[in-house]
């Protein structure tokens, strides 16, 4: 009797392991994103994630024939949470930089990257060289490439870091900041399309130095997940080739953000 119970228990245990494996193969791909970076990823009024990154992710999942689920995660902790296994890939318009490559692997770029200064429409700032910006207050979102850029190049200006891009925008509007540095595409979008962004304009030439903006925008994965990375690259090439990428691109932007032309 006892033997029977034991073997039954063993069977269930093994069974559940096997079943677990089976499930793992079909488990939805968990995608981490920020949800505070319009128009790339943001929360709609009813609390759902939407935006360019989300649409691209859905298109990729469709090509890979996998279910996808999304996780919204604060930017500060977005790489640590990936490493801790809270999700499998970050699709959050992250620049591919050398420093991040030490911790994570990146897919092929799915956007080109550049940064820009933004100032108030009535601002007298036209020269954005470090010497001209001495004593000015410049803001950026923390833990970003623009934050690193500012602390290295504009050390003599007063630099402030914010938890989200929205917060930087708010303080540029309120006049607490003389200028901010942001990624060029969302900044174009904000200043041209949104009502509150009408306050402000881009100034100076775009910042494209690869030392700061890296080699484009990629999806970040844990370094051991080569299989997933290759699958994502393949799917990305497919959606670019069949026009899905262009369709999503045109829904959000006036220019092609894969080439910035």
């Amino acid at each position, binding site marked *: 009797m006892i033997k029977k119970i034991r073997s039954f228990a063993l069977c269930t245990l093994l069974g559940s392991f096997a079943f677990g494996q089976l499930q793992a193969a079909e488990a939805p791909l968990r995608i981490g994103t920020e949800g505070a970076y319009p128009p790339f990823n943001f929360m709609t009024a009813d609390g759902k994630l939407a935006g360019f990154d989300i649409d691209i992710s859905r298109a990729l999942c469709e090509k890979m024939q996998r279910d996808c689920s999304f996780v919204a995660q604060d930017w*500060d902790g977005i790489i*640590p949470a990936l490493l801790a296994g809270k999700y499998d890939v970050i699709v959050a318009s992250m620049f591919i930089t050398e420093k991040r490559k030490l*911790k994570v692997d990146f897919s092929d770029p799915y956007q080109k990257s550049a940064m820009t200064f933004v100032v108030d429409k009535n601002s007298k700032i036209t020269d954005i060289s470090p010497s001209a910006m001495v004593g000015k207050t410049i803001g950026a979102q923390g*833990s970003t490439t623009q*934050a690193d850029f500012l602390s290295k190049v504009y050390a003599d200006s007063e630099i*402030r870091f914010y938890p989200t891009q929205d917060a930087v925008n708010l303080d540029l*509007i*309120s*006049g*607490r900041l003389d200028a901010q540095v942001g990624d060029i595409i969302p900044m174009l979008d904000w200043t041209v399309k949104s009502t509150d962004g009408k306050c402000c304009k881009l100034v100076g030439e775009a910042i494209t130095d690869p030392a700061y903006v890296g080699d484009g925008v990629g999806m970040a994965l844990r370094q051991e997940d080569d299989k997933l990375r290759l699958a994502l690259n393949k799917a990305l090439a497919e959606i670019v080739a069949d026009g899905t990428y262009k369709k999503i691109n045109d829904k959000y932007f006036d220019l092609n953000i894969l080439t910035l032309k």
Partner: protein
Amino acid sequence: MFDLLIEYWPKLLQGALLTLKLTFSAVIIAATLSLPLAILRSNQHSIWQWPIRLFVSFFRGTPLLAQLFLIYYGSGQFRLELTEVGLWWLFRDPFYCALLTFSLNSCAYQIEILRGALQAVNKGEIEAAIAIGMNKLQQYQKVILPHCYRIAFPALGNEIILLLKGSAIASVITLMDLMGHTRRVFSQTFDISVYLWAALMYLLITSLFVWLWRKIEQHLNRHTQRPSDHHNLQAAEQSTTNKYPLESANVR
């Protein structure tokens, strides 16, 4: 782990100094404001009762983070109006916004602590003060307030520690306090141990504070302390020596 500390300790120290500056400035402002408000609040007939109650329940009943956002980003919406009344310089600066929020928040808690202490002062003491002809000011100065602060002292210490730790949220409005620098270092290194070092620094600061606060408390309560055991033993020994000199010298 240690190389991280060796490389970044000046940053963390710089942050810790701002944390201390922010917390203790707020505590001093709050302590100055809370005493008169607590006295007004504990007077049953005062017309100030209700406004003070409203103020206290708002600042005790809402999260500190919400208050900070409200004051910082909220004031940003009223830039023109604030410029007109000449207050924008105050709200423009994130340090002053944090200082204002923390002062008001701590003030609300301190009012309630002091009110409780005022009500706990022994009625007999006050009656005695009246009996020997002290006026109201003398009563407060010589009897009520010394008792009040003695009673409130541990709770006030508690409140200051809570505020010190609560000040960690100042980094969300761009202040580079201990937490702000910690987050910055973490974003540069992705090394989680920096949070451990930050926690240890907070622990060190609070430990020093607790030690100091206990010393002051002992000083305030020195009249209630019995001579220490060590002292008693010495005295007893002395008297033994005097009374039975032979016995203590093991002669008997």
